[in-house]
């Protein structure tokens, strides 16, 4: 597979007259057409990506230029007002906080499940569990959303009170407002449940790739199972865990429906994560879209652009880590 030119086509052997194969020139033309088509679709992808950036920026610029508030620091979303005032501060805060909560809960548990599947579960159980985890990754987010709102929220109320009672002194877990558990914390828990399957299955893949001889090296030194994991599995899998977490983070940041159904939104910033209120980019877009006029939609597009950049950064970082890991493991192969 040398290059994109017809050099790849080996020189044609003189075709026997009775062969049904088409004459060589057709092959050349066919090759050109085929290369053109496939390269064209590759280029089309780049064009789509570029136009996403361009179109979103264009509409966002329209909105931001007319924003009478500060787009970054205003605690309000009122593009229909006179003058129009809207800002992403609350959304950025809510998005980041709920995603952090999700990561703090999901990553350790996901690594635990991945280790469970790769190193602890009875062998007959491991394969079906892995299969089910992969299936769960396919459950649509809206289903998580209504389950979160109708089942999880009532269940978490007791836990919220309890956290307030025993950990209220941390400020973060102080619940200063009464009300159902439609809080950033609940959103974080739901997001954690949602990203668990993807983080688990990526981590599991990496753990299964740990060279057997590295594990045997530890075993032969008289290591217990946990020590084998600490000595050979976790060091090998560290970058894999990081990139799996980043992929999960990317999902959590952009999740719309689960947040829109669970959160009771408000335009305040509060570190009391148990209090109902707050908002995220995606949730705000879904919630405000129905009532928005054209300018309101542009304002939402502007907030979407920020979300876009945020997820690009996170995913880009994840990809970089994966790429570096490939080089690293290649060097040791």
């Amino acid at each position, binding site marked *: *597979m040398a*290059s*994109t030119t017809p050099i*790849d*086509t*080996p020189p044609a052997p003189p075709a026997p007259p009775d062969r049904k194969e088409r004459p060589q020139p057709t*092959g*050349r033309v066919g*090759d050109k057409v*085929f*290369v053109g088509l*496939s390269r*064209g*679709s*590759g280029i089309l*992808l780049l064009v789509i*990506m570029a*136009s996403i950036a361009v*179109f*979103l920026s*264009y*509409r966002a610029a329209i909105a931001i230029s007319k924003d009478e508030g500060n787009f970054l620091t205003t605690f309000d979303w009122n593009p229909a007002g006179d003058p129009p005032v809207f800002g992403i501060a609350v959304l950025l805060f809510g998005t980041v906080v709920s995603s952090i909560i999700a990561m703090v809960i999901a990553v350790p*548990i996901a690594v*635990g*499940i991945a280790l*469970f599947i790769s190193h*602890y*579960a*009875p*062998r007959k159980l491991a394969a079906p569990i892995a299969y089910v985890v992969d*299936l769960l990754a*396919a*459950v*649509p987010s*809206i*289903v998580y*959303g*209504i*389950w979160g709102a109708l089942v*999880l929220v009532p269940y*978490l109320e007791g*836990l919220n009170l*309890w956290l307030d009672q025993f950990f209220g002194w941390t400020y973060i877990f102080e619940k200063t407002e009464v009300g159902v558990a439609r809080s950033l914390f609940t959103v974080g828990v739901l997001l954690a*449940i949602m990203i668990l399957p993807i983080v688990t299955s990526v981590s599991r893949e990496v753990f299964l790739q740990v060279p*057997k001889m590295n594990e045997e090296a530890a075993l032969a030194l008289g290591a217990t199972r*946990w020590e084998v994991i600490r000595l050979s599995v976790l060091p090998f899998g560290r970058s894999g865990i990081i990139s799996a977490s980043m992929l999960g983070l990317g999902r959590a940041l*952009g999740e*719309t*429906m689960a947040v829109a159904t669970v959160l009771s939104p408000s335009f305040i910033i509060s570190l009391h994560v148990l209090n109902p209120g707050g908002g995220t*980019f*995606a949730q705000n*877009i*879904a919630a405000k*879209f129905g009532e928005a006029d054209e300018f309101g939609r542009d304002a*939402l*597009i502007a907030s*979407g652009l920020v979300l876009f950049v945020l*997820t*690009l950064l*996170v995913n880009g970082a994840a990809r970089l880590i994966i790429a570096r890991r490939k080089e690293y493991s290649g060097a040791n192969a």
Partner: protein
Amino acid sequence: MSHASTAVQERPTPPGGHGAPKSALTSRSLPRLAPVGFAAVAIALSVGISTAAGWHSKVQWGMIAALLFLAISYVATTVVENKRQAKDRLATSVVWVCFLIAIIPLVSLLWTTISRGAERLDGYFLTHSMAGVLGSEASGGVYHALIGTLEQVGIATVISAPLGLLTAVYLVEYGKGSLAKAVTFFVDVMTGIPSIVAGLFILSIMLIFEIQPSGLMGALALTILMIPVVVRSTEEMLKLVPNELREASLALGIPKWRTILKVVLPTAIGGITTGVMLAIARIAGETAPIILLVFGSQLINTNPFSGAQSSLPFYIYEQYKVGEAASYDRAWAAALVLIAFVMILNLVARGIARWKAPKTGR
């Protein structure tokens, strides 16, 4: 790798020989079923504590039981065996607890959807729309949404499958140099685009060219979400095709494009089909772009190119927002339909993958 599956059969040892009192290899150890005992004690204690303290949330009960279980097994192992064994035991317990913690919400999700959904799901529900049905009425159905989903997903598939396939062929068979690198990178980036951003992109086009909402617009947003998934999975599959096959074909003087069409793609077709089906399953559940681009409708609109439509995930959201008992029932029933659709696609796709898997490993 798993120690749990290994068994060492013991032959009766002759008298004398081993079993000397000062042994270097043996040490006191807990019986094999000790963790089960620890779990039982932990659960009993947590029930006791929670009842005494008057906590009602089962979540708390579970968390206390889990913490007690970890503490008991650590302490017991430290006392009976030693610190290293205790750490090992703790790690094992933590991993089991993680698994159990995670399994509970996921089982609850599936169970709730199935049991609540089955209440309302019947032939009537699948064959009627919401035309003229009030939110609080226990009537109506999902037919219009089903049509919408099938059409939107169908259009998205018709666009993304060939595009994705060709791109993957380009990357694997022709791609070298900076263009291929850029495409690879941006396919990865595209995988991470939140669905609502894809929706906003199409929305911005609609605003600029003054296009009205329709199923097609939703399908275009779904296309953006689907293409990278198809590219990735197809790429993986094409890479699995052994190079010897390509070389054998090329050496016969068959042009490269025919080699790809006649040799490479047919070899990988099983895996490619799987990838496309998994991609379909993923986009079928997307709600956010539909909210922005298709607008939603209570009526049957079979024309995806004009006028508002509904879709299954949108319908679930809409019924949830109505907030009546009857609408919740409809939401769960529709959720069951959607999950069934997605799961069947997944199962069939994975079945194909297993059945058609290329025999050669990497």
